[in-house]
């Protein structure tokens, strides 16, 4: 079953139609002139096609939080990047209503030599806010990360937990219309995790839509009201998280207890 919001009056927050994404990556890791010459001499073609996302269509209504599950290499991150406008579709069409804040990696735009405060500004600007808007949120971000004491110290002096707490805090406090999170829930210690989970719940209620990629099926069940399952770039199933997760678990042939390491 697809959530009711898909049938409501307002247009869907995200609409994906027959989306395919094909990479044409070079075989060599780093393209250089020498390799190009050698290849030319051998008469080889450098490109190899990878069908990362293959003919996927779905709609996400307002207020939906969508979980995306699937094995490694299923195309989950590629799909998210396409929705965020980072990777161009090869075929198909994506329609997005609202400002997306992708939290695909923590600490994007951060500079380790600068203070936490300066990095909040950098991170906020990177996610598309204006300077004023970010400045207005600086205290909130600091408080949420619990870093009041260290906020003016350079980031390189932070522990990795402090780093990811600040990065997570920057991402979730920028009031995005559409939030995307790729495996970023495991930031910080148990206390922070609880806080993070609460914040995510709040965001889910505020945001127009939320996307969550996770291998932690528990968090998907908890936070999402819709779920899609990708396998090798194809959309296998779209529906209630419970059903999709059950089908996925049956498919990968592991019991319901297998994915709990991250849930601890």
């Amino acid at each position: 079953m697809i959530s009711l919001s898909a049938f409501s009056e307002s247009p869907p927050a995200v609409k994906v139609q027959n989306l395919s994404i094909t990479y044409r990556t070079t075989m060599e890791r780093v393209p250089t002139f020498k390799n190009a010459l050698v290849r030319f001499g051998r008469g080889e073609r450098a490109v190899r096609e990878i069908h990362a996302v293959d003919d996927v269509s779905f709609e996400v209504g307002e207020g939906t939080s969508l979980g995306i599950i699937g094995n490694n290499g299923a195309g989950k991150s590629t799909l998210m990047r396409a929705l965020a406008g980072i990777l161009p579709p090869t075929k198909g069409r994506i329609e997005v209503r609202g400002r997306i804040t992708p939290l695909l990696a923590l600490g994007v735009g951060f500079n380790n030599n600068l203070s936490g405060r300066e990095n909040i500004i950098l991170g906020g600007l990177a996610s598309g806010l204006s300077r004023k808007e970010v400045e207005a949120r600086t205290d909130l971000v600091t408080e949420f990360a619990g870093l009041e004491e260290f906020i003016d110290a350079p980031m390189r002096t932070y522990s990795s937990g402090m780093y990811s707490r600040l990065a997570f805090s920057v991402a979730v406090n920028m009031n995005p219309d559409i939030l995307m999170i790729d495996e970023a829930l495991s930031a910080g210690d148990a206390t922070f995790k609880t806080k993070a989970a609460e914040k995510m719940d709040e965001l889910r209620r505020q945001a127009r839509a939320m996307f969550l990629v996770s291998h932690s099926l528990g968090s998907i069940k908890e936070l999402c009201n819709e779920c899609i399952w990708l396998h090798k770039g194809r959309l296998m199933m779209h529906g209630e998280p419970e059903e999709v997760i059950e089908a996925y678990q049956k498919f990968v042939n592991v019991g319901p207890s297998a994915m709990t390491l991250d849930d601890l």
Partner: protein
Amino acid sequence: MSSESPVALGGSRQDFTPPVHIYEPHRAGIPNLGPYIRELWRRREFASESSKAALRSENTLTVFGQVWMVLNPLLLAGVYYLLVSVLSGKPQGWGYFSHLTGGLFAFYFVSNSMMSGAQSIVGGGKLLLNTSFPRLLMPFAAVRTAFFRFLPTVPVYLLFHVLAGNPWNLGTLSALAFLFLLVIFSLGIAAFFATIQVYFRDATSFLPYLNRIWLYVSPVLITIDKMPKELRSLGEINPLFSLLGGYTEALVSGTVPSLRLWLFASGWSVAALVIGSLFFISRERDFAVRIF
């Protein structure tokens, strides 16, 4: 600000809230330029902030810290003083030396823009893969950084200007116009080499040599009128001949450059900006895939 609430209407610098983004495959390389440039302008704070961050973080671990901004050009001037006045055996006057430093600092601005512009995309992996913004901001931010490294050289030059007893007049002011053209030109080549670098990583190794040759064929170490005939005839195809030639002529000798220099300098800088940026924009959607 209106984006506080996701459904706010108007009042924001965005055209409409919430914006509708449509992503489709694009075959023709260049996207719709109107929205692109608007978005580029809207996100300018991001470029300037990341450039500021780059400058601020640069010398945080060194003893002299930000003093390096002035120390660098002084040392550079010192090295060239040693080269042209001591080692060459025929000491040159302050007049020549003020020409040398004036031209050299401006040249280093262009070459820094080119080098760090070339690195801007390839070095910005995480940003490129995880956020979405007009990528042209990255080479432009590199040019801003290069410009702010150039600024502290101005007082250093002015010192030599005074020592040489160079004139101050209206001609000196026209150097500002040439400096502006140099900035335009730098934006263009930064974008151009940023794109090249994505496809051929070896470009970083070629660039220092290209730079060195460019320095020698441009009117920096020698003034335009003392240049060998062969080099002067190259003037039309060397953008820096008119750009730097006009700049130093105006700055050092206080004469308004000839119309010919004005035309060539403006032509080159506008052409560089248009061609460099369009080349960049037509390729930028491919960057994320290439940087992966």
